[in-house]
């Protein structure tokens, strides 16, 4: 079950620089761990991106050096109210998506 928690600030005015925080539930398997003697296959999120009203505002490349359930935050300038669409892809080619609404008044 792909699950993410997203935090978007409230009381934002046009032109404000806002901090966006996201935690994605993912094991980020390194491929080096063993369970009952068997190697656990590598499976980490390698790409993630965030679109703001359809335009990409953030993109990150992750690797096995990142801890499980990655916590990512970034800053962007708020122009108008809109949807933040998060997307990520892991080594098993499983896509994850999450959405949050940024209200600018």
């Amino acid at each position, binding site marked *: *079950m792909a*699950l993410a*928690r997203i*935090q978007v600030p409230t009381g934002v005015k046009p032109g404000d620089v806002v901090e966006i*925080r996201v*935690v994605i*539930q993912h*094991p*980020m398997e390194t491929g080096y761990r063993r369970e009952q003697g068997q190697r656990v296959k590598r499976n980490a999120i390698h790409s993630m991106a965030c679109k703001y009203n359809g335009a990409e505002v953030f993109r990150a490349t992750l690797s096995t050096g990142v*801890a*499980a*359930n990655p*916590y990512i935050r970034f800053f962007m300038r708020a122009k108008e109210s809109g949807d933040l669409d998060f997307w990520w892809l892991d080594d098993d080619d499983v896509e994850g998506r999450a959405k949050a609404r940024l209200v600018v008044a």
Partner: protein
Amino acid sequence: MKWIGILALVPVLAMAQRSGLDYSSEEVRRLQASDFENPGMLWVDQGEKLFKQHCAACHASMKGVAARYPRVEGGKAVTLEQKIRHQRPMAWESDELLALTTYVAHQSRGMAMHRPAESSVQKGREEYFRRRGQMNLACAHCHDRHAGDKLGAETLSQGQPNGYPSYRLEWQKLGSLQRRLRACMFGLHAEVPAFGDELLNELELYLAWRAQGLPIEAPSVRR
């Protein structure tokens, strides 16, 4: 010599109950304190969805329930996980069971753990003080006598149960108290009981008695 031995016992008897949080580093404490950064909250969210799906038909608020577990039912120690499995036998340590347990436990956050009757914890107490494994150590050797001391690079805690289910950085995921107990037994090179084993249940019950009403922290963050 004799009275030196007696003096050494005094700190044990006078031991104030301290949560594992007190022994944690600044970074770990900060992680637990923030409901957003605490990765255990992912399981709380997941548990909320599952609860609405599977449990909400019969159950309303679960506030305070986790504070009453583990407890004695029908002469046996029953843990919160066991109770939550009462309708659907979800696999031990599955994300599903962990999520539901954490969701329920989270609603009792800050509440004092109840204290089972002293007469009911005798079995668990015996296990707590029983030497086991090739290391030939009992729980008490580290967690009563040496709490706060170093074991290698780690600080030994009192082994309090109030933070569980807990997100352990070592596991890189959330885990139950029984997983933690099993990890200790593995470390002692002792036979590791299965999840839901009576021994582990009785130990949990004793730990609840021993916690003397420490507040529930679930989901806590530990190293």
